[in-house]
């Protein structure tokens, strides 16, 4: 008698298994990976539809959409991993319009040979981050590339959200006289990741600040509906974000070095490597441009939120035909805070 069990597929060996090309080939192996790993972890009513697309109800209000690719190395770092980072990153990009994020889509590019155990860790972390944030991952895709043609795993996430009525937040709305508010310390994420890089590894108890900011944003928007601009200073750091807004709004900015909060370990690590924390990446911070009259109220609301406890007023928007961001140094001088050119590199001498 045959022992064949109809429809039976031996479960994936998550502990010892590795991604192979069949996991991206569209056959049974791929279906199994999707079911056992992704669908199981992300489980929600839209994924349960089992279609190539998620059928969503029409939301009330103006819709925003954003997408973000994640290629971080190392994949696991103190305080997070590429999984939760890919959820937070897109939630934050959506939230920086003042929107409430509603749904996420996720695309995975896996490299042949990638351990399934690591993939499970990443997917679990994404699922947890999405659940905690209340923003479900409703659709997705997986491709596998040959060994050597990827770096373990790349994740692209896309998010959709709705902007509350009356809110008009945009990078081109900063006006001379507005105040610049920062939600907390800078450089934590970049330095935490760098501390784990093979060639650099230095001992530190720094952790990434990766976090979803939509809750903080909701509180801010409610208290100060006249918020002008919001942006999360990720790659390129605070300096780059300020330059983006200054250039978009055709204004200048002046910030106070002494007012910008930096953790001591970040300052020390930057000092040691010859880096400037102003250019180091953050994943759980935002910059807000606010009319001067609303600055105190905004700071109060931000400081009452766990992700804005160290919020600080760091400077003001000025009139400047060159759209320079300038900084009053702690030393008493003044200097430009420029766009980052290329990657920030450690100094030689």
């Amino acid at each position, binding site marked *: 008698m045959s022992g064949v069990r109809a429809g039976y597929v031996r479960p994936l060996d998550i502990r010892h298994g590795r991604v192979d090309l069949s996991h991206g080939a569209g056959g049974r192996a791929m279906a199994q990976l999707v079911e056992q790993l992704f669908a199981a972890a992300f489980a929600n009513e839209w994924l349960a539809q089992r279609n190539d697309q998620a059928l969503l109800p029409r939301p009330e209000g103006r819709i925003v959409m954003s997408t973000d690719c994640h290629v971080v190395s190392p994949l696991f770092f103190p305080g997070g991993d590429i999984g939760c980072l890919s959820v937070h990153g897109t939630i934050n990009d959506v939230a920086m319009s003042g929107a409430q994020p509603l749904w996420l889509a996720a695309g995975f590019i896996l490299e042949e040979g990638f351990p399934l155990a690591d993939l499970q860790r990443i997917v679990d972390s994404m699922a947890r981050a999405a659940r905690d944030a209340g923003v479900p991952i409703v659709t997705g895709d997986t491709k596998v590339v040959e060994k050597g043609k990827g770096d373990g795993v790349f994740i692209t996430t896309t998010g959709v959200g709705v902007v509350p009525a009356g809110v008009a937040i945009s990078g081109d709305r900063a006006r001379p006289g507005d105040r610049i508010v920062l939600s907390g310390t800078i450089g934590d994420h970049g330095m935490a990741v760098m501390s784990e890089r093979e060639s*650099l590894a230095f001992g530190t108890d720094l952790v990434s600040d990766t976090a979803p900011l939509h809750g903080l944003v909701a509180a801010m928007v409610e208290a100060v509906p006249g918020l002008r601009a919001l942006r999360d200073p990720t790659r390129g750091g605070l300096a780059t974000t300020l330059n983006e807004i200054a250039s978009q709004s055709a204004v200048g900015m002046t910030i106070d070095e002494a007012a910008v909060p930096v953790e001591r370990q970040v*300052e020390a690590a930057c000092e040691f490597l010859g880096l400037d924390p102003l250019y180091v990446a953050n994943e759980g911070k935002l910059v807000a441009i606010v009319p001067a009259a609303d600055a105190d109220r905004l700071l109060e609301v931000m400081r009452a939120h766990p992700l804005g406890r160290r919020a600080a007023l760091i400077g003001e928007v000025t009139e400047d035909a060159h759209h*320079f961001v300038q900084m009053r140094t702690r*030393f008493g*001088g003044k200097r430009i805070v420029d766009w980052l050119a290329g990657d920030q590199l450690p100094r030689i001498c």
Partner: protein
Amino acid sequence: MKYIDEFRDGELALGIAAAIAAEADPRRSYNLMEFCGGHTHAISRYGVTDLLPPAVRMIHGPGCPVCVLPIGRIDLAIRLALDQGVIVASYGDCLRVPASDNLSLLKAKARGGDVRMVYSPADALKIAAANPEREVVFLAIGFETTTPPTALVIKEAARAEVTNFSVLCNHVLTPAAITNILESPEVRRLGTLPLDGFIGPAHVSTVIGSRPYEFFAEEYAKPVVIAGFEPLDVMQAILMLVRQINDGRAEVENEFTRAVTRDGNLKAQALVSDVFELRRSFEWRGLGMVPYSALRIREAYGAFDAERRFRLETRSVADNKACECGAILRGVKHPRDCKVFGTVCTPESPIGSCMVSSEGACAAYYSYGRFREIPIVAGAPA
């Protein structure tokens, strides 16, 4: 941060600034050259010039390791990576320096060359160990500060009998460059480059000590004050130079006593002289051929000398005609005197080497100080 904040204290800076303003004679000028890129960087980053009276003028010197590396030498490394399949490892700043054929090491990497950024020469040796079937060349650059680590890694490679590792040595010497500037026609004959004193190197001096500068003070009657890389170090050194000039003294003084002694680091010096010997002459970007200004690997360690190993011949390649890096490196011109500064030449796409490293005079000025007088081209990056 302990040992850092003390040297960046704004209150103390105001005190020193007041002393400089009180003691500097407004009827004369004090033309001071900071030799090191590290000082250039600190001056720009902390806005030190805002605290100086108009009589004190800072002139940027050639002490930026990346800036003085001539095109021909980078070409060698690029060719090794592209034509010979060699893994070329170097410091991050070095990878962006423009070379011939519109290439840089970074662009060579994009064309398939195996170019790796390392934080220390020891990492390059690790790459060699991890790739026993490949040749690995470390492109070594820098002044006396970075020379001992290169010497150490060559000795380590010899000890471990590594057979696939070598060094393309471009280490240069500070005193030779200062002599070259002091002997230049602009200083000696034409007088177009007034030089009243030097801020002496910080990290370089921890290795070579303060003694080598005594020659300049005596022979050329120029005061030298060795200073640390923190902004208060620079301010204090400027005050000390103003005092020397006012008194008509030309001495070597040491502001950086917390790290620099008269004799320097003797162990490091012994290590360097064990592995390296003087080159008769070496090309510097900006200064041209400078006699006895650089080091090469001794015969005993010849197996680790990429020039011997790959029979490399350096071709001298002229800089871009519009680029004023040469004159800027000699202190003869200021970045704002260059026609391509901030127009064609920006940190994103540098024409000359001074725009590459954050220690380069043009990059420092562009990134930190150009709001002072440069009308910037509208709508640059959007």
